[in-house]
Each structure stands twice: as structure tokens, then as C-alpha cells.
């Protein structure tokens, strides 16, 4: 098994104060292995981006530990943390829109290298040339401005801007949302190619479960700040264990087979992930809810084959004598 390159141990990130604040990330434990594509899925507001920002050092966890290649990463002010963690880079959701409209592609790419202290112009040009080639563009693009690029080309430049910094781990936040199938296919194939060519590790945050299924080796499913299920993506998709994972997979509009009926229904306001809340975050809409679910928070526990699930009903199925009276 490849070594973990990133490890999170009980990482929690809170916004605001106890009672009124939001527990955006709650005691998340996961490991990302070298050279894998690790997916993070979950509905809007489940804490995916906040977890990414914690790993990057842009958000200081209130508790827990994060390590890179076995080295514990100390909480630092964001600017210093970014220098300390330069091997981890982040591609913003709308990376095309993040390009400065007044800057040519060439200047955008070079600026990042200057900021990161690459002094030699030769070295900068060598890196840019190599990365442009890796993302399937050529030097004729260096003089172009963002509005002269297609959506897919903008994403490639957004990715190139990160790759010139020669990271080991790249976090992609919703890299294909709003793209057409064709452009999406090009971006996803590029990710697969770069992983092989540059030996990169990817954390892939997405709403698109069909893509995550095919692209990612393993994935974590988040719900209101908690990781509720984690495992090999083939297995999670073929036999989801957590009730939330099941309903998430049921929500995907399908092309083949009978159209799925919507079983999941929001009843009233979805609860906020409040700080210090007790009980499973999913119990308010879980079809399998039982008494113990609101009394304590289930922890992520191994159910075999490296699959980890946080659910009392999975750990101790009904009939095992727990809480049935």
C-alpha cells in the first residue's frame, strides 16, 4: 500500500462561538496516499472547501493534527503556512475567472514563480514550457489574454499556474462544474495524465458523483462537517454503507435503468452544524434512525476492507440487542 502523503487526525474547524457558531469541519480523520486521486463529496455546505483550506493552512483548526509526508504541520499564520506547505497547491473552483483579465497568460504564469522566489528567468521559462506542454497547450498561448480562451483552455491555464510551482499534492475544488461533457473529458483526462507524468497526488472535491466514481481511487463522503463514509470508490459506489451515501447516490439523475424515485425529503430547515452538537448529524432525515442516534455521535470505524463508516445502524445492526427497548 502506498504511504500516506497527507494525514488528518480529528481535525475540527469552527466559525464563530460555541452555541452560535458553525462547526464547518468536525473531527475529520483521513489519509491521502501518494499518487492517488482522493475524492471528497457531499452536498453544499458540508465543509469540503473548509477542509481543503485547513490542509492548505489557510484556516487554523480548533483541534486535531495535519501532517505532510509524516511531518506534523504546525499551525502558522496563513502566509507562513503557505510557504511551509508550498508542496500542497489549490486550484480554485472558478480557476478561469480567477485569471486577471489584464494579464497575458505568460505574465500570469511567470508571476507565480516570481512570488515563489524563482529568480532565474531561464528556470522560469523552462518550467513554463514544460507545464504548458503537460496541459496540452503551446507557447502561442503565452501572449493571449483570458477572454481569448475557451472555458476549457482557461481551466488548463488555471491548472498550469499551479503546476509551475511543482507541487506534490494538488487540491482541485469543483474543477469541472459548469463545463460541457467534451471540455470536462479533456480536463479529467489531463488530470489522469498529469498524475502519471508528474507523479502527482490529487484531492478532488466535487458534486459530480459519476465523475468521482470513475476518476477517484478512494473517496470520503462528508455530511455537515463529518466524514460519514470513506473507502475505495468502486466499493463505496457499488455498496454504499452509510444511509446518507445511499441517498446521495440515489439523487444522481440517471441515463440508464428506471428513473429513480426521490426518497429523500428535507423536512423543515436543515439543521446547522452547530458547535458542540451531540448525535449523528444525519439523524434528522435518516430513514434508519434509532434512539441511540441522537444520544451520541457515531465515530468513523472500520467495517472491513479499509472501509470506514460512522453509523450506529451499520456498526450494530438492529437485533444485536442495542437500544431496542
Amino acid at each position, binding site marked *: 500500500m502506498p504511504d500516506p502523503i497527507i494525514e488528518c487526525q480529528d481535525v475540527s474547524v469552527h466559525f464563530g462561538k460555541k452555541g452560535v457558531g458553525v462547526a464547518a469541519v468536525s473531527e475529520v480523520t483521513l489519509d491521502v496516499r501518494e499518487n492517488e486521486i482522493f475524492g471528497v463529496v457531499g452536498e453544499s455546505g458540508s465543509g469540503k472547501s473548509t477542509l481543503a483550506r485547513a490542509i492548505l493552512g489557510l484556516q487554523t483548526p480548533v483541534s486535531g493534527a495535519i501532517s505532510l509526508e509524516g511531518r506534523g504541520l504546525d499551525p502558522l499564520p496563513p502566509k507562513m503556512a503557505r510557504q511551509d506547505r508550498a508542496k500542497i497547491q489549490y486550484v480554485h473552483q472558478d480557476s478561469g475567472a480567477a485569471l486577471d483579465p489584464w494579464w497575458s497568460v505568460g505574465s500570469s504564469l511567470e508571476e507565480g514563480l516570481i512570488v515563489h522566489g524563482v529568480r532565474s528567468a531561464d528556470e522560469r521559462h523552462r518550467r513554463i514550457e514544460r507545464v504548458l506542454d503537460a496541459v496540452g497547450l503551446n507557447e502561442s498561448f503565452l501572449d493571449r489574454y483570458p477572454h481569448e480562451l475557451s472555458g476549457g483552455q482557461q481551466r488548463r491555464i488555471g491548472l498550469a499556474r499551479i503546476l509551475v510551482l511543482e507541487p506534490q499534492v494538488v487540491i482541485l475544488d469543483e474543477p469541472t462544474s459548469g463545463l460541457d461533457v467534451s471540455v470536462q*473529458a479533456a480536463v479529467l483526462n489531463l488530470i489522469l495524465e498529469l498524475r502519471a507524468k508528474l507523479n502527482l497526488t490529487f484531492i478532488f472535491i466535487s458534486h459530480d458523483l*459519476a465523475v468521482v466514481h470513475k476518476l477517484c481511487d478512494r473517496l470520503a463522503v462528508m455530511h455537515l462537517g463529518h466524514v460519514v463514509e470513506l473507502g475505495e470508490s468502486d466499493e463505496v459506489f457499488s455498496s454504499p454503507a452509510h444511509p446518507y451515501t445511499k441517498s446521495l447516490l440515489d439523487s*444522481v439523475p*440517471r*441515463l440508464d435503468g428506471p428513473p429513480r424515485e426521490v426518497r429523500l425529503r428535507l423536512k423543515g430547515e436543515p439543521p446547522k452544524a452547530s458547535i458542540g452538537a451531540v448525535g449523528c448529524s444525519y439523524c434528522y432525515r435518516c430513514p434508519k434512525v434509532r434512539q441511540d442516534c441522537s444520544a451520541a455521535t457515531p465515530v468513523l470505524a472500520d467495517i472491513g476492507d479499509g472501509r470506514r463508516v460512522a453509523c450506529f445502524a451499520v456498526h450494530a445492526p438492529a437485533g444485536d440487542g442495542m437500544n431496542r427497548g
Partner: protein
Amino acid sequence: MSDPLLTIRDLSIDIETPTVAAKVIDHANVQVHLGETVGIVGESGCGKTTLLKAILGILPKTAVCRSGEILFEGRSLLDLWGTEESRRIRSCDIGFIPQDPYLSLNPAFTVGRQLNESLLELTGQGAYAELLRMLRAVQLPDPEGVLERYPHQFSGGQRQRLLIAAALARRPKLLIADEPTTALDVTTQSEILEVMRELANETGVAMLFVSHDLGVIRSICDRVTVMYAGQSVETAPADALVNAPKHPYTRMLLNCHPGRSHGFKGIPGQVASPLDPPPGCRFSPRCPIAIAECSRRRPQPLHPSPSQEVSCPRYEIDLETAADA
């Protein structure tokens, strides 16, 4: 089948630009019958939004209609453009749900003020009661409370529910929705689709539903029109379109779906630009089974069965064998 409510026949629209005219819609045909939900699907830039704007009469002043007609209940909307009658049809008989729920409400005013103003103007005092009824129907909790809140106090899914309620409270005959779920996560998307399906059944409103996601289209539409670069290339019942597509573009689009393709497949080449569209069938430069004739003359619609229409004389030819030949 019942009478057509909306008929778009042979419609061509140019939009003037400083250099040349963009030929954005090219001899397009779409029909919506009473109580029917019709989907429009196609890659980014193929003219979906422009078509909707033409129906709503909200095209820019630089737009010119080169051919065709738009009939609503048998009356020509193009002839009515700019008249009081067209304004009445647009605000009473046709409801509109825009693409981005985050951009379509003014953040400075309460939701109630924005929705009520436009409603009162139209239908008087009964409007408020109807709005409350619709807010309940889309399952927003505490409808009276909802109206006192500001847009930022709602999630994306809740805003979309609000806009659906507001559009339906006017009791339109036709509801036009431009990618109403694209900005939402899968769970929220499936809930919104469910709400729309139920309300369509209950109120009998006809819908024209734009999306680039064939899975979404299949889950909500009775019939589908596929557009490519401003041309309507195929129309069929939703199940037939997904299971037995005819036009080479539709077949290739379906082959790109992650659930169906091996690896990530795109359609080679890029969507034809309306500034310099290829002659004849606009898909011909990307089509593996095109022959010289295809780029000479725009293909006439054929009818493989009474409910299907396809603008390709070569729709029976296999894509694979042609690629090998």
C-alpha cells in the same frame, strides 16, 4: 396529442457585433403542447438561452430575426414584440425561472417586497394568498416568515424554490426554466426536480426546460429537442432519445456520459462559432459520418417515426464502422 401551446418554426436570429453578425439561431424548430414538459439540450454556446430570450421578447436591440415565427396560442409573438399585449403575455401567461438563483434576487430588499410588487401589479389582492399557497407547495417552511427575510438568508436551493413559487403564483400557461438546477448540488437538484414535477402535474402548466445534463432532462421531460450551434438537430420522446438516439451529434453526446463511456470521452473539435458557422449542417466538420453533401445544404428534417424528427439523412449509419472505414 393536444394543441400546440408554443410553436417555434424555422426560426433564425442574428445578433449584430462590431465586426460581423453572429448567426446564433439557424432555422430552429421547437414545439410545446398543453401540459407537456419539453427539454432543450446542447453544449454551451449552442443558443439555448437565446432561444428562450426570443420567446420572452428580451433579446438585445442588436438582434435581428432572419426567418421563421414564434406562435403562442396561435398568435405571432414576433409581431407583438414591444406592444402592451406582448408584455401581458410575457408577465401573465409565461413564467420564467432564470439560471442563477444567486443573481436573480435583489439583495437590498426583502423577498416579500420583491415578489409581491410584481404580483400585485398583475393580479391584485388574490395574488398574496396564491403566493403563500405556492410557497407551501414548494415546501418552504414558514411562508409568511419567508417573505420578511432577505435573499442572503436563503440557501441556493431555497432561493430556487422561491423563484419557482413566484413564477407559478401567476398561474402561467407556460413555465420556461433556464438550467434551474445547474448551480445546485445533486441532493438539492433532485428535490427541486421533484417539486417541479409535482407542480406540473398539479397545475397542468407546460414547461420548456433547458439543461446540458441529459440525466436531468430524462428525469423531468416528456420530449426533448437537441440543439447544436443554433440548429435543432433532433426531437424525440425523452426515453427514445436516450435509448435510441438518431442524430450523430446526439449519439456522440450520449457516448460522452461518464456512466456510458469507457474512460472520459469528449467530442473531438469545438462547438462551431456563430460568427463564422460552417455551411450546411453545422455539425458536419465534427461528424464522423459526414459526406461532402452535408456541408453543401442544410439537411431537411426526417421522421423515423411519427414522434421523432431528425435533421440528418445519414442517421442510420453506424458511427464506429464509419470511423474505421
